[in-house]
């Protein structure tokens, strides 16, 4: 029997995968271009099959706090939104990170700032990767580049969220959310039972039996020495992520003289750019970060010893380019090329930038 291949939108793949891998709860608020996630879930009525709860909240602020409640109980909880909605969730995200509550947040990014546009962009990189809310914290940030990865990253996201007791963000965009591709959905898994949660997540608030101390989900430590200790614990966790969880993909990097670094939908455009360049005899390669935090700094540093220059291609005014520069640490020139406000660059446009900035530069 062959694989069960379906054709669907990235947003629909998120919803289908969530039901299949045994997510316990989705809480969300409508916003373009990701409303299909909740619409698909509601149409599927998973409460009748897996017992998954799906609830439309009154705001993104409420959604993320419902995640704080459900995640603190050791349940697999998720939400999805787009840029302005994710801004509203920053308060909740810093509490979740501080209190070490696992959850999955999907950002189908649109152009900003402000109300911006409903067209795709990658201008929320800083917000996702550098914090967004107050305090020293990091999210694990995954950057899918296909509908298949939208589905796969739901499971990967929850695996990492519970491994590290940390919120995970899927940083997608309007292209990946809206485009249709074939996808192999994950195999069906049942939701955790309460007994399984107790065993896997002993910190979860499921009601305090006489056999243990009470569990408290909190980010508050009023004594500064205790707060510093808690911060060090979080930082050690982020360091471990950097050592163990970096994911990336390379195209034609082995003999590359010039390198593009691009993630998500930009990486799809740049893959085509590399093909065109190779046809013309230009030794261009592409490194696609799959995790944006932790960032593939070590590999980019290695490639910097080999290439003459690096171009960071993003649908933003230049955000990831800063991490590429930090990785390269001055070894070779690093440039940025991007379109803004919902514009998606074409492969030939990117090749022109490669020619002007990298080869001619």
């Amino acid at each position, binding site marked *: 029997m062959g694989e069960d291949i379906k054709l669907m939108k990235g947003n629909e793949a998120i919803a289908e995968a969530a039901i299949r891998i045994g997510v316990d709860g989705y809480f969300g608020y409508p916003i373009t271009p990701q409303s299909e996630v909740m619409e698909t879930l509601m149409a599927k009525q998973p409460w009748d099959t897996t017992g998954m*709860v799906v609830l439309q*909240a009154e705001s993104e602020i409420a959604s993320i*706090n419902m995640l*704080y409640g*459900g995640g*603190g109980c050791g349940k697999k909880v998720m939400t999805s939104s787009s840029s302005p909605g994710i801004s509203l969730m920053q308060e909740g995200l810093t509490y979740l990170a501080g209190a070490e509550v696992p959850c999955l947040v999907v950002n189908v990014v649109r152009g900003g700032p402000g109300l911006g546009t409903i067209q795709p962009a990658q201008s929320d990189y800083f917000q996702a990767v550098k914090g967004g809310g107050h305090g020293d914290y990091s999210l694990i940030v995954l950057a899918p580049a296909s509908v298949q990865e939208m589905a796969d990253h739901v499971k990967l996201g929850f695996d990492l969220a519970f491994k590290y007791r940390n919120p995970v963000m899927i940083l997608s965009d309007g292209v990946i959310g809206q485009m249709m591709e074939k996808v192999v959905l994950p195999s069906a898994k049942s939701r955790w039972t309460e007994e399984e949660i107790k065993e896997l997540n002993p910190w979860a*608030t499921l009601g*305090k039996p006489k056999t243990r101390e009470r569990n*408290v989900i909190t980010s508050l430590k009023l004594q500064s020495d205790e707060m510093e200790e808690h911060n060090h614990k979080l930082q050690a966790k982020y360091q471990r992520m950097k050592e163990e969880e970096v994911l990336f993909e390379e195209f034609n990097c082995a003999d590359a003289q010039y390198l593009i670094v691009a993630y998500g939908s930009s990486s799809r455009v740049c893959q085509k750019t590399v093909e065109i360049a190779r046809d013309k005899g230009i030794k261009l390669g592409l490194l696609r970060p799959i995790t944006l935090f932790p960032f593939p700094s070590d590999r980019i540093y290695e490639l910097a010893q080999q290439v003459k220059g690096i171009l960071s291609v993003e649908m933003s005014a230049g955000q990831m380019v800063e991490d590429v520069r930090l990785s390269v640490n001055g070894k070779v020139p690093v440039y940025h090329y991007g379109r803004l406000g919902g514009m998606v660059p074409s492969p030939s446009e990117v090749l022109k930038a490669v020619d002007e900035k990298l080869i001619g530069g």
Partner: protein
Amino acid sequence: MLEINDIIKPENLVYGKTPVLTDSVMHYCPGCSHGVVHKILAQVIEEMGIQEQTIGVAPVGCAVFAYNYIDIDWHEAAHGRAPAVATGIKRLLPEKMVFTYQGDGDLAAIGTAETIHACNRGENIVIIFINNGIYGMTGGQMAPTTIEGMPASTCPFGRTPERDGYPLKMSEILATLPGTCYVTRQAVHTAAHVRKTKKALVKAFENQKMRKGTSIVEVVSTCSSGWKMTPVNANKWMVDNMFPFYKLGDLKNE
């Protein structure tokens, strides 16, 4: 002569602290209503036998450390977000007993949307609402429930509606929502009132067991530090000034 240890014997004990209340020394100021409400809440949890099923949601404000005093599992919510946090817990653990414990700034200012929408969905939770008309934790600033003319550090000459707006009767608003089954306003300044508030809490948790919808128990409270009064004067001021505006009794009981 009798030694004290001869007197403290199980057969002589007429009153004891419920084991649901921890041995931690409370940080509340003398005369504060929180301690009394914590005590009767812990008693209710013990007497109803629900300690192992109950999950509390603590607010931002003076009761932020409620989790140090009542021996159950807790979540410490961001300011105003407790009803959304409780919604997440209760929806995923419908068999558990879930309550929020919130002050007036938390419930009636920054968390107005979360409060109204949780109640309007009829979430099967209990909301305990401590209304002392002031921000205690941050040092006595004006609250949404500060009554007209009442001074606070951000309205030192008294609340002036032309500048500050009007005090908000949140329980009256919540009583109009079809999702709420029980909305009551109580106080804990006399033994009789303490008993009534305790009964209200029992009823609220029983409603939750019967899945009747949201129950709200407002407790009109004193904040002698924030009000800059002695505990005795604070009680008298509350009776004379708060009760005429925030009338005690059931606003809804279905």
